[in-house]
């Protein structure tokens, strides 16, 4: 059973990074503000920074091993490809490439030098290089940050598929919650060296433990299938509801809706420019002076007064409404 168990402490400038986390054959995304210690966490697992505590992988204790003796695949933020080696040379540096070049679709680039490649291609080479080693643990530091928006979408899709295929314990560090939700099974929010919440993406949205997490976690992520229809895109969600978005997309998508863009009402509004989804109230969580109310698959953030006025109670049937323009579509 592939497993990474870590409990590490690393002193940083203003605070100490202290994280205890168990990662199975899954991908865990670590999100948080810059400076929270996300990259340091990855480096501690890889052994690149000294850390107190322990790192155990599949029963082996890595805590005293030098980085070169740990079976990690590390994808660096700027890819860190060796400029003087070809793609094949880079990938083979860690071990026999096998068919990893073909699997990641870069076999045709085998003789190219890194400086000749596009951002997306470099990312794939970096990943191939990390995988050629047949690592037991995968560590990715901001894998999409160095890419332009268009490439990001394509690469996000590929990376998600690859991670699912590999079934290795993987930790992905990112500052973008939507990336985290798309790539990972679980998401942890790291603030000033401590994990304030770890759970599925939708849990973080529906039940954030703090306003910070609430703000940081960003929006509802609804899975569905998109089709273009006139000026708008219609998305059939997994639960058969259909919503529209002013974004352009086709095929499998994640529709992102921010809780504060969602209004709640008892009756179906007559405004056709909006999305309306009816559902049962499954949770009501106060956050500061507002309320996070989960209706069906959508969590809304409304003022305490509105909640009071509507007299919301768990189990009530409500309608969640938001604009088509407030619906971001992210390709999956």
């Amino acid at each position, binding site marked *: 059973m592939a497993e990474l168990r870590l409990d590490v402490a690393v002193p940083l400038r203003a605070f100490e990074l202290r994280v205890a986390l168990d990662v199975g054959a899954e991908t865990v995304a670590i999100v948080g503000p810059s400076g929270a210690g996300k990259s340091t966490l990855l480096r501690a697992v890889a052994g690149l920074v000294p850390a107190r505590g322990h790192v155990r992988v599949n029963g082996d204790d890595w805590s005293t091993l030098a*980085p070169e003796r740990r079976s990690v695949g590390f994808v660096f933020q700027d890819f860190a490809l060796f400029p*003087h080696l070809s793609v094949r040379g880079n990938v083979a540096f860690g071990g026999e490439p096998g068919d990893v070049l073909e699997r990641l679709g870069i076999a045709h680039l085998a003789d190219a030098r890194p400086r000749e490649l596009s951002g997306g291609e470099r990312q794939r080479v970096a990943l191939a290089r990390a995988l050629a080693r047949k690592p037991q643990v995968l560590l990715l530091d901001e894998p999409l940050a*160095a890419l*332009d928006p268009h490439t990001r979408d394509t690469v996000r899709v590929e990376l998600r598929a690859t991670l699912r295929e590999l079934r290795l314990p993987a930790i992905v560090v990112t500052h973008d919650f939507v990336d985290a939700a798309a790539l990972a099974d679980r998401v942890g929010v790291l603030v000033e060296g401590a994990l304030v919440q770890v759970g599925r993406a939708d849990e973080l949205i529906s039940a954030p433990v703090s306003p910070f997490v609430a703000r940081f976690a960003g929006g509802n992520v609804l899975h569905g299938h998109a089709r273009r229809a006139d000026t708008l895109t219609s998305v059939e969600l997994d639960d058969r509801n259909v919503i529209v978005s002013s974004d352009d997309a086709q095929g499998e998508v994640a529709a992102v809706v921010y809780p504060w863009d969602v209004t709640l009402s008892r009756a179906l509004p007559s405004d056709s420019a909006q999305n309306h989804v009816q559902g049962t109230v499954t949770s009501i969580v106060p956050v500061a002076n507002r309320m996070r109310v989960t209706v069906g698959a959508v969590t809304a953030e409304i003022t305490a007064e509105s909640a009071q006025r509507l007299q919301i109670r768990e189990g009530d049937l409500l309608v969640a409404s938001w604009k088509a323009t407030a619906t971001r579509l992210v390709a999956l």
Partner: protein
Amino acid sequence: MKVLFGAAAAVALTFLALPVLAIFLRVSPTTLVHELNDPVARDALVVSLRTSALAQALVLVLGTPTAYLLATRRFRGRNVLLTVVELPLVLPPAVAGIGLFAAFGRTGLLSTSVPFTQLAVVLAIAFVSAPFFMRTAVASFEALDPTLIAAARTLGARPWRVFVRIALPLSAGGLGAGLALSFARGLGEFGATIMFAGSLQRVTQTLSLAIYAEFARNFDVALAMGAMLVAFSFFLLLVVKWLSFGWTSPFRSVPSSSA
């Protein structure tokens, strides 16, 4: 402003080029070639070539790992060691000669029979020219992207492999340039050599020493040797510049934004 800057540049460049040009203008090419057949000149050339080659090989083989350690490890006393490595730079050559006696002379700390031998020339050249190589080598290794080193380690490379397959190839240009400087300094070495190794034709008399010995006796031979030294140094500088240019341009760090 352009006029001022241009004038300053003209003066500076003329000043630097003139002594070199004058050597070649003063003696005709035929005389030059004829004088080069003088046994003093030929012997001096052989001594210079042998001792320089050996000295620079010594500097390269011992200096490269030292520079790597100094550049990549942080330890107490590192700054002191860096200063020690640069010391010969500020030592007047004659003092360097005395120092070599004090260390390796018969009456020195490690009593050896090195003085007055060709090995003494090699040591003197290595001593005064090493700092030129070390400075550039340390800077080259320090300029290595630490993320590349980290990446190599996460790919299972032990320190030796990191050094040979990542650090060396990426620093080759800098090392080459440093060696060029070191070589040039070594060719011109005089003070420490004449003290510690003495001057004896065919054994320890390098081109520099021969020029000094001959200029009062046979000026034309001295001039010819001077011309030879200049041509040699110029050629050398060109070759290594080309080498380091050919090595560094494809290896400029890869930009992080997508192409």
